[in-house]
């Protein structure tokens, strides 16, 4: 196998991973500005600044909570839709395509659509709020409300990925297995739980890890819908890093230190998720 086939991959990895990591570490330990990077050695000053930043310290936890809850929500909804598609039988067809559309919608448009949908004036639910006696209700008005609403928006966009991949896994379950279970007198639900479930569990877990990765990257929605507010209630880490670097004071060194800490948190969460996945897979055997 000619080794030069690996050249494009290696160059890509250097540009998207190697170079950013090296420069990120260099920026984190030096004083820099956007115009003049790497001015002087700063020791751990940038990490101290990151830890002392109220907005950032909380944002790491918010990112982790967002990723875990968004994943749980999409996996539950997506598995339900996949099982329903499987039970309906027939082709994926037009209905399947409709279910997939949220996934290809530009996240910025998703944000605009939901923001307008929920607007206290001119939104789709103003009549409902009036009827319920909470006229002018704004789900984005409170911290908890805004965070939950963003979770729903994100899950709206990424549930279809779960539906599609779990449905594909369900199709892969050998028909003989289901027939054998039916012959043994197992009902539909029992077959689903005891025969089909274990078969597709590895796929569900793989999709869950993928959803976790995607949810940690959430950025566009935050910018468009809440700008991190009200207060800092929806300021997730990627948004806060971006704001530290480009908006306001251009604290490049602090932002670089923050990205390293964020990378660490994501790494730990994914390592735990990977461990759980492996446990479940091994327990099956």
């Amino acid at each position: 196998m000619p080794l030069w086939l690996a050249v494009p991959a290696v160059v890509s990895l250097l540009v998207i991973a190697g170079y950013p990591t090296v420069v990120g570490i260099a920026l984190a330990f030096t004083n820099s500005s956007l115009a003049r990077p790497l001015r002087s050695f700063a020791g751990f000053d940038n990490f101290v600044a990151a830890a002392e930043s109220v907005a950032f310290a909380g944002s790491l936890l918010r990112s982790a909570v967002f990723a875990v809850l968004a994943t749980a929500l999409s996996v539950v909804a997506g598995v339900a839709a996949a099982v329903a598609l499987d039970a309906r039988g027939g082709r994926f067809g037009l209905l399947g395509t409709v279910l997939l559309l949220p996934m290809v919608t530009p996240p910025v448009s998703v944000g605009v659509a939901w923001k307008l949908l929920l607007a206290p004036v001119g939104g789709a639910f103003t009549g409902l709020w009036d009827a319920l006696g909470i006229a002018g209700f704004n789900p984005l008005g409170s911290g908890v409300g805004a965070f939950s609403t963003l979770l729903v928006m994100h899950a709206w966009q990424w549930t279809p990925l779960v539906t599609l991949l779990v449905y594909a896994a369900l199709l892969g379950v050998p028909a003989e297995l289901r027939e054998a279970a039916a012959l043994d007198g197992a009902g539909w639900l029992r077959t689903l739980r005891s025969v089909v479930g274990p078969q597709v569990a590895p796929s569900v877990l793989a999709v869950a890890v993928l959803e976790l990765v995607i949810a940690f990257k959430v950025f566009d929605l935050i910018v468009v819908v809440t700008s991190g507010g009200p207060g800092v209630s929806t300021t997730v880490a990627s948004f806060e890093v971006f704001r530290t670097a480009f908006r306001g004071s251009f604290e490049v060194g602090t932002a670089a230190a923050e990205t390293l800490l964020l990378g660490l948190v994501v790494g730990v969460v994914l390592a735990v998720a990977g461990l759980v996945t492996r446990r479940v897979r091994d327990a099956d055997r």
Partner: protein
Amino acid sequence: MSAPVVRAFGSRAVLAVAAVLALAPVLFLVSLSLRGVDDISNGGWLPTRVRWDNWPAAFDTVPLARMLANSWLIALGATLLTVLVAVPTAYLTARGGRRGQRLYSVLLAAYCAPPVIAVLPLYFLLKSVLGLALVDGLANVPVAVWLLDGFVRRVPRELEEAGWVDGLSVVAGVRRVVLPLVLPGLVAASLVCFFLAYNEFLFAVSFAQSPSAQPLTVGLSLFQGDRTVQFGQQAAASLVAIVPVYLLAVAAQRLLIGGLSQGAVK
């Protein structure tokens, strides 16, 4: 009622609710884009009188046509680059034994890192717009390899070996034997990468700072008036971004679904 009837009814009910949920926000955008200011503030789902003036107004307020063109240029350029890199790479990860496996793992690990980590360093490297297609294209390589790897694995080795016996080099074998067989997967992967590059926002808002070079996603984020006056225009502008990807997704439905579901979960 017997159990199968309940099940058939239940599954259809779940799917109907899911379909309504999937379409509702975008359909509401359509409704808003066809309504005047008063009609919008009165609330409700449907226009009382359909009017089209939000559409031209949106194109006047921000340079939407220019941004749409930018989005397509960036997404097409990025996708081309992704495919050029991903094809030889997927061949290596699928056929390269242990080394291939390692390359595959490294690529997936690179995909797991939040992209904001790369923004600052790349800002210093690029500071320009031309780089946007480049960055988007390279950033999507792991996704394309992840999708293609499974397709290459399913090409029987014997076919390639027969080609080698007939005097084909490894590279010629990839081009003339493997590539035609993984074409459906390649099309699906290209579509997914096109969508990802077209929808990308973080790199776009960081690097494309001059208005003439901004893609639609950045334009839409700037289109943020909290006044009700703008709702109709905002809705129209969002739809300008959505319509092309929806058309593409519906047109290429079968390829997309096949490619995603066959390649991905192994």
